[in-house]
């Protein structure tokens, strides 16, 4: 089962205690105590990068960054995102959950573009730059 607490989604599991017991009045007997264990599943918000996944050297490739909830629904919020590829970073202001940037590379290769923001799952896009 998944549960949202604040800005994070947790996986909730019930684990029977190996030693602790509680008295079950209804059943009239002792039964193992059940621990509720919560583990981080994801953040409630995520960033996604949309756009073409290939371009050529020195040709700007327009990419769109969107803010979604963890189930993929668009969010109408503004926030500052950091977009990075191979140690180069730019700041992108998302207005109403959307922002646009251009990606340019003077060299050929495959580049992993990452969109990050605080308390938010990051977005990834691999772009191939051809000669």
């Amino acid at each position, binding site marked *: 089962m998944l549960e949202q607490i604040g800005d994070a989604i947790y996986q909730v599991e019930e684990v029977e205690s190996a030693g602790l017991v509680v008295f079950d009045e209804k059943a009239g007997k002792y039964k193992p105590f059940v621990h509720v264990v919560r583990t981080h599943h994801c953040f409630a918000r995520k960033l996604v990068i949309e756009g073409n996944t290939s371009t050529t050297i020195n040709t*700007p490739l*327009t990419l769109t960054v969107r803010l979604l909830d963890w189930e993929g629904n668009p969010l109408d919020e503004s926030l500052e995102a950091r*977009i*990075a*590829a*191979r*140690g*180069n*970073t*730019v*700041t*992108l*202001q998302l*207005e109403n959950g959307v922002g*646009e*940037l*251009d*990606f*340019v*590379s*003077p*060299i050929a290769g495959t*580049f992993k*573009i990452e969109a990050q923001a605080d308390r938010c799952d990051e977005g990834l896009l691999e772009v191939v730059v051809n000669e």
Partner: protein
Amino acid sequence: MSKKPVLRIEKTEIETQIEQQKAVLKALDEKAKGGEITLKDVYAQNKLIIEMLQEKGITRAEKARS
């Protein structure tokens, strides 16, 4: 609407060096095609190729050492 930011990949020192080496090799190749290549050019070409292979660490000697 605010100006679109540009995420630009910067060339590393090695990538710039490789690009320059490739340009020199291409020029020497054009020279050879035109029949104007000299012994000095061939020496420079070979030296450059060896340097490039050594940088990539793919010479037989490099492999044997590793």
